[in-house]
């Protein structure tokens, strides 16, 4: 019987005590605890979301980088190819030019040599002619010193003419 016979004092003190507990715990424990729990959950949620976003961005950035790298590689290849072509062309050109120049110089030299030779030949001819004349003169002079020789010579000449 005592078990289900509550004392008034206990009921009174229980109401007072539990009421005070509700107020104090509500104000100084549950509110900050629940608020910061909510706050923490929110921040964790946000952090996860932003991590996801960052990962996405990272992926995009990586893809971009890859693309850029690919482009750069292509560019490099193109530049290298161009450079090779240009250098080949330059070498080819300069070789051609050098050949041409060399040919031209050779040609000129050959021309000059020919000219020189001709000039030298004509000079030589002239000299030979004058030397011959001189020699002939000297011979003639020696030959024709005696009057019989002169006469003989003239006769020879006449003889020749007669034949003609």
């Amino acid at each position, binding site marked *: 019987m005592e078990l289900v016979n*509550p004392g*008034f004092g206990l009921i009174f003190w229980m109401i007072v005590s*539990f009421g005070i507990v509700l107020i104090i715990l509500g104000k100084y424990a549950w509110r900050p605890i629940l608020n910061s729990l909510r706050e923490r959950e929110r921040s964790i949620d946000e952090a996860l979301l932003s991590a996801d976003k960052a990962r996405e961005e990272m992926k995009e950035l990586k893809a971009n980088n890859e693309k850029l790298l690919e482009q750069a590689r292509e560019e490099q290849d193109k530049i290298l190819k161009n450079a090779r072509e240009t250098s080949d062309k330059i070498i080819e050109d300069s070789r051609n030019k050098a050949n041409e120049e060399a040919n031209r110089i050779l040609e000129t030299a050959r021309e000059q040599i020919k000219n020189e030779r001709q000039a030298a030949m004509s000079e030589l001819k002239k000299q030979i002619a004058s030397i011959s004349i001189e020699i002939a003169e000297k011979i003639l002079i020696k030959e024709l010193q005696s009057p019989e020789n002169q006469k003989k010579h003239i006769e020879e000449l006449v003889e020749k003419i007669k034949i003609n």
Partner: protein
Amino acid sequence: MIKGGQVHRQIVFILLLVFTFGTTLGSGQHNQSDKKHQSGQSSEHKEEGFDPGEMIIDHIIDSHEWHIATIGETHITLPLPVILYHNGEFQFFWSSKFHHGHSSYKGYRIYDQEGPLKGKIVYEKPNGTLEKPLDLSITKNVLAIWISIILLLLVFGSIAKRYKRDPYRAPKGLQSLLEPLIVFMRDEVAKPAIGEHKHQKFMPFILSLFFFIFFNNLLGLIPIFPGGANVTGNIAVTGVLALFTLFTTLFSGNKHYWKDIFNTPSVPWWLKIPVPLMPIIETVGIFTKPFVLMVRLYANITAGHIVVLGFMSIIFIFSNMEPAYGFGASIVSVAFAIFVTLIELLVAFIQAYVFALLSALYIGMATAEGH
């Protein structure tokens, strides 16, 4: 979890029946005049016979003093203040003035005869008639409630400080022990029962209920001071808790809730007019819900204590026959008492959870918007 609790509750109920029957038998056999001696300790009862019923009841009811131990013939008790309001004036004195219920003080004494007044403080007028003063004493249970409240404030005050200081850090220590419970009560109890938006307003109440009951259940399992008081197994305490739930429900009830009670929809009209059968049933329902809350918690906790104390009594019953039997029985009894105490640990949580869950459901019903 609820299903397990129900099964367990049935077992406990059967045991409770057995032991209640046992205790009434025991009380019946007992000679009334011997009962002046108010102590459950067996050592001194060896000569006059051991009464398990009286011992068990002594251990689970409220008391004006806190009995800690008895060594030989000396009782080590904590005297508690007695506060009486009688004939327009207050009386304050220590309960030690009663000398463990053996003597009266200023005409006041603890009534020790069978009946509704048993255990209460009465005033005996010179002509022999009894008066019952208004008893506002700080009894064993009041002190136990205060101890549990101090514990609650210390524990939750300290973790609240940490929550305030760095809310974004992971919990640690005591905080990580209690945070799962708080989050569980919020996500598994309050949110589904009351709703995503409205639960916040009632969270402090539900959490306070849960932890108050849980702490007191656990403290009640500790056999020595400062635990050991049967707070949540006291019908006054559970009644006040249920009363708080009742008033919270009544004050938070919206128009829809009251309409459901006084003009229940989807019920044939002849159940409402001319005899307002449904409104009467629904109105009674408002009060049966907290009543059931009160009885469930009280019965579960008290039953657990009775079972443990019953196993302890077996040792003394057997040793009264022959000390050797007592030793033999103690092995079995202690094993069973440990087993029941372990179940009680589970019950301590389940009952606190069920009380909070049902309170949340009642509040949810009162605040629901339409169907």
